[in-house]
């Protein structure tokens, strides 16, 4: 019975324009029958005001989320949502741990790395009972990697709300000038192309093929490592950086590419001349670099910035030995959850359910902010933006080999540790890779242990 209601709503929304009378009727019925465990009287039609904190700050983003909230309030006339924008994870977590009447009921986070912290500390409530009660089968609703990054050790304390996928952006003009006909599919092709695309100017570059340095905006170790499908932690829960050969392979590949492109110091000097990542001065948009690894949102930014650029997107290349996995990429996304301490969990769940599972809500939001939609139904929706450069990322998101960084009890601290090692390796401060990896693994284990 509950499951039929969910799918019923999907159909209803698809037909919403012509059947507004029915909508009103069904909506009334919906709120009348809902009741999920603890808390408030929203299920009985009593007025409830819930607070929703999110991190979006740009006008187009807040506009899109507010539009979704308005549709939600129309469906649930007795639930009022107080939206607070531009809140960081640190702040919402601080408020949730402190508790009190002003703490939010529904929270979102851009950092899936923190899911482990949210779930393990029980600061975010487990959503499994709510999903069960409403007959939502997560595996049939959400793409597998997104489902994975929104849970921790079986505790589904969050649900995905739009996702991000990482791929290759390339400058078609530069490709043509260098005589390259198609985007590279393996890393050796990629390295060769990066060298071909590099044009020197004095002791710097007029155009650089690719900026491999870890501070080169999105060229972070974790984004590269997805092309190897690295797991970070072994079955015993301990860091496997020292034993997983893909980590050493990635660090070596990046260091080699740096050598081929002119060396770390020269690249670093060029990097510091880059403009802000999130501005029209982004080095890919200015033509300073011919290829870049970046997220799907860049497709919208390039259009917004009106960059005079002939560009296209493709999946980021994979190691030669794993050529068959081409098409994969790093995935992450925004997650949304309910405060453990909230006294209005039933109403909060209605909002979370609407935002994360309502196909139209997910699709329109994804189109508005150019993110990857986070339900299987939305990914297949015909209403989804059909721009081919954007579609690349939808395909990466659907690719079964795409991976994400695993949730850890202490959030993304293990990635910070790996990043620090990366900085030392690329700059030549750490030359003994094996020793560096062993020390970093030890550091990660100590930090995880400290958080237990």
């Amino acid at each position, binding site marked *: 019975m509950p499951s039929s209601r969910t799918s019923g709503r999907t159909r209803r929304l698809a037909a919403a324009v012509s059947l507004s009378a029915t909508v009103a009727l069904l909506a009334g019925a919906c709120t009348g029958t809902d009741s999920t465990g603890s808390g408030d009287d929203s299920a009985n039609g009593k007025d409830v005001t819930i607070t929703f904190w999110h991190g979006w*700050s740009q006008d187009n983003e807040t506009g899109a989320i507010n539009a979704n909230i308005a549709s939600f309030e129309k469906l649930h006339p007795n639930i009022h949502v107080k939206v*607070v924008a*531009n809140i960081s994870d640190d*702040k919402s977590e601080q*408020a949730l741990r*402190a508790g*009190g009447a002003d703490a939010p009921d529904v929270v979102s986070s851009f950092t899936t790395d923190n899911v482990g912290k949210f779930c393990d500390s029980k600061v975010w409530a487990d959503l499994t009972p709510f999903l069960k009660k409403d007959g939502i089968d997560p595996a049939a609703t959400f793409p597998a990697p997104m489902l994975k990054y929104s849970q921790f050790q079986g505790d589904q304390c969050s649900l995905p709300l739009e996702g991000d996928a990482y791929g290759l952006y390339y400058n078609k003009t530069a490709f043509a000038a260098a005589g390259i006909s198609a985007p590279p599919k393996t890393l050796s092709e990629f390295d060769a192309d990066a060298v071909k695309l590099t044009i020197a100017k004095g002791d710097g570059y007029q155009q650089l093929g690719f900026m491999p340095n870890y501070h080169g905006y999105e060229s972070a170790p974790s984004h590269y490592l997805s092309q190897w499908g690295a797991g970070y932690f072994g079955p015993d829960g301990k860091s496997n950086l020292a034993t997983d050969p893909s980590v050493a392979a990635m660090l070596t590949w990046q260091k080699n590419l740096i050598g081929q492109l002119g060396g770390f110091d020269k690249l670093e000097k060029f990097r510091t001349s880059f403009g802000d990542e999130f501005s029209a001065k982004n080095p890919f948009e200015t033509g300073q670099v011919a290829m870049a690894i970046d997220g799907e949102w860049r497709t919208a930014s390039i259009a917004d910035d009106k960059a005079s650029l002939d560009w296209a997107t493709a999946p980021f290349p994979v190691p030669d030995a794993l050529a068959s996995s081409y098409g994969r990429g790093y995935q992450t996304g925004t997650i949304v959850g309910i405060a453990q301490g909230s006294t209005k969990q039933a109403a909060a769940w209605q909002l979370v359910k609407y935002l994360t599972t309502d196909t139209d809500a997910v699709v329109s939001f994804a189109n508005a902010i150019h993110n990857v939609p986070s339900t299987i139904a939305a990914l297949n929706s015909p209403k989804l933006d059909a721009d081919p450069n954007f579609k690349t990322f939808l395909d990466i998101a659907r690719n079964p080999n795409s991976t994400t960084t695993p949730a850890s009890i202490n959030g993304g601290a293990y990635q910070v540790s790996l990043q620090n090692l990366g900085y030392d390796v690329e700059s030549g401060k750490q030359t003994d890779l094996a020793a560096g990896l062993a020390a970093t693994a030890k550091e990660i284990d100590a930090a995880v242990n400290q958080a237990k």
Partner: protein
Amino acid sequence: MTDVLSTPVSLAAPGGARSAAARPARRRAALQWVAVHSVAVVAALFFLLPFVFVFLTSVMTDRQALTSDFWPQHWEWGNYAKAWETPGFLTWWRNTLVYAGAGTVLTVVSSVPVAYALARFRFRGRNLALMAVISMMMLPPQVTVIPMYLFWAKQLHLTGTLWPLIIPMAFGDAFTIFLLRQFLLTIPKEYVEAARIDGCGEVRTLLRVILPMAKPAVAAVALFQFFYCWNDYFGPQIYSSENPGAWTLSYGLESFKSAHHTNWNLTMAATLLVMAPVIVLFFFAQKAFIEGVTLTGVKG
């Protein structure tokens, strides 16, 4: 200290030697004038150019702000209006004024009697109390922040408001107490005794005799406290930032750059708007301010 000199003085050459050297001395003086003022001009450029650049950028278009141009093509005064209209900017202003205003009044009111007692009363443990004041003055706020945060969040549920910033000001501020005490020590005892002979109690002596004489010092510490609150970043970050309705200018300004797509021109306009009140206040209260700073360092 003076003995370094006592010997040279006794061996000083007769005054006649000076007049013979008068002309080269005058030339030397002229050269010195040029040298000193050249250095001063260079130094002034170092101190003032940042303001000039910030101001000129604040009236450029966002496109020009990303170039290396020095002079604005069009004077975009509208940037200030745009910066002003940033969502939340007015709230940050109001909160900052409330924090700085209430904080200053409470601090002065609660610190004056303490400073007076430490400067005038004789009691055992006075030195110890003074050392405690100095220790508190030197204490990095981060040392006590964890228990204090838990106290405000878990016991009083006041985080996300301005109260955790304002309430502590009602219990004296170590720096203010210390400065006021230093000043009160310089007021001759006779005034107090005269007041006492006139039958004034301590409270009335303080209010009628001492405070009027200590006006410059009180003005200085009030200014210091106002600026401290105005500039405070750590306090609002910890105690009030989880509620955007309780952000102050210092905290809000930092998020400004992201909210404006990193538009430097608007960011610089907002930066100047935050600096302006402090600078205006300084020009009105320059004397009290300089006196106050001098008081912090000179003659314990």
